[in-house]
């Protein structure tokens, strides 16, 4: 037993035998991230459940698919495509909505929960820095969730394609006609681009703000995150009869579209022309990212200062 060996060795010999003192930063980051997956299993279980539910509904709906395909045959190709693609767009939208909800909920809980259940005293008893912990948590909304959501959307659409193909083939229709309309991989890349630009990079200050409030508030973090901006908007409306602040906030949720796509094309349309260069050249994007970085730096600071809530 180690215990016996330890007591047998004398002091100087033992101090020579002390294990190496440093764990590589990447390994610490890996375990900090593992912790998030253990603690918040719902960040991947919820989108999976939504996808499963959608697939169940889709399975029932494709009973009518052969009938629809026959009706479509006479129509023009654009109309055909829109009808066939409709459920695919629905699946993507549903999973994106889920992604946004989960991300916001995760951010507002991220740094408060460990203080609420006092487990922060356990986490802080280990040699993991506040920077590592906060960055591991921030990587969930900024990297992990967008990728996981897009991957789940892709797999869902792939299963939809397989199910539809089986039904179409089973009714003696041409599978090729159906497949020609669906381009899964291009759809996946478009979705990823859409999520990373609009919902991650452009919305970054929202997630940064939520994490900052999560690190600061003792309780009711959600109210602290939402009420002050709301109050400012209302006061501005009352006092100056203007809505600049509300418009400014709305910008982070819906805005930023300028620059991502060539003018006149729809975001998720297969013919969309992407212009990432113009998007990355937007000044507002970089200001937003700088503000996000400042929010996260403050959150690191607060994690050091705040004890159990």
């Amino acid at each position, binding site marked *: 037993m180690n215990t016996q060996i330890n007591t047998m060795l004398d002091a100087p010999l033992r101090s020579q035998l002390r294990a190496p003192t440093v*764990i590589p930063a990447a390994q610490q980051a890996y*375990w*900090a991230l*593992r912790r998030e997956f253990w*603690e918040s299993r719902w960040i991947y279980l919820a989108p999976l459940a939504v996808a499963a539910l959608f697939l169940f509904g889709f399975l029932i709906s494709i009973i009518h698919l052969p009938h629809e395909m026959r009706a479509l045959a006479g129509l023009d190709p654009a109309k055909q495509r829109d009808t066939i693609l409709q459920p695919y767009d629905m699946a993507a939208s549903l999973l994106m909505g889920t992604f946004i909800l989960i991300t916001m909920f995760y951010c507002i809980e991220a740094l408060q929960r460990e203080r609420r259940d006092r487990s922060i005293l356990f986490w*802080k*008893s280990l040699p993991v*820095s506040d920077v590592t912990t906060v960055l591991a948590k921030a990587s969930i909304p900024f990297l992990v969730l967008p990728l996981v959501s897009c991957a789940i959307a892709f797999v869902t659409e792939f299963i939809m394609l397989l199910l539809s193909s089986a039904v179409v083939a089973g009714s003696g229709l041409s599978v090729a006609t159906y497949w020609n309309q669906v381009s899964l991989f291009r759809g996946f890349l478009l979705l990823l681009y859409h999520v990373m630009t609009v919902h991650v990079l452009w919305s970054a200050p929202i997630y940064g703000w939520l994490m900052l409030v999560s690190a600061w508030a003792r309780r009711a973090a959600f109210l602290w995150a939402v009420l002050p901006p709301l109050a400012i908007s209302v006061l501005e409306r009352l006092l100056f009869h203007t809505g600049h602040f509300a418009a400014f906030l709305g910008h982070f949720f819906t805005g930023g579209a300028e620059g991502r796509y060539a003018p006149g094309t729809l975001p998720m349309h297969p013919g969309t022309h992407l212009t990432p260069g113009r998007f990355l050249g937007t000044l507002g994007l970089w200001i937003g990212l700088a503000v996000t970085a400042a929010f996260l730096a403050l959150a690191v600071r607060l994690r050091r200062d705040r*004890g159990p809530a």
Partner: protein
Amino acid sequence: MACIEARGLRKAYGATVALDGVDLRVEEGRILGLIGPNGAGKTTALNAILGLTPYQGELRVLGRDPWNERDRLMRDVSFIADVAVLPRWIRVSQALDYVGGVHPRFDRAKAEGFLGKTSIRWESKVRELSKGMVTQLHLALVMAIDARLLVLDEPTLGLDILFRKQFYDSLLNDYYDGNRTIVVATHQVDEIEHVLTDLVFIDRGRIVFNRSMEEVESRYLEVLVDPDKLAAARALKPIHERQGFGRSILLYEAADRQQVAALGEVHAPSISDLFVAVVGNQTGHTGGVSR
């Protein structure tokens, strides 16, 4: 090098002064008991040592500044804050994986050895374990870390007496090796009496007593005074007097052993009696040690 060195440590929460100029030096290899009434500043002092709270004054722990180097300090320091800090959602196996993943001095085989002696199952979540089992788990994790300083703040709070005894036994037999330093803050004073090498009383943010146990044993005597010798006993200036077994029990500091032995039955005072005598005299408390 001293393990802990504090000079003029101060901490106030608004108008409440939690630490009012604490000077403390703890050498390596000591087992120090930090005893004080509720709100005396014990937890604040320990939190400052662990880098969990900012402070004024000078403080070095193993040569480091705890507030600015908490993560590096924790490579050499372990602590158990109190029984309820392990996250309730974590599985036993996950806790072992995580600590093993982030701590350079964690010996997993050792932790598994400790857990093997308990009835804790690997796949259990902390929320499914009893209070005693959670402490066993936390202790197994901490004892498997080759730390130089272990800080325990009320480690046995809410546990039954068998468990508390077992806790300190394994701490002494399986963990303490003469090189590590252990700091224990607790209300259950008499249980840790035989464990300690040093004794510190803290009251209202100040250190009011700081001696090694050898000093305590040689310096303080308690006498169960024969009724007819009470006047003579009082003349020797006891630091405290109380009633027990229908007789007066007088506590002396630096008294002549031969001289007091003539007054009645002499024995070493318990830490709690000493605490009542010292802290009670200093501040006019009527008591303060809860058991």
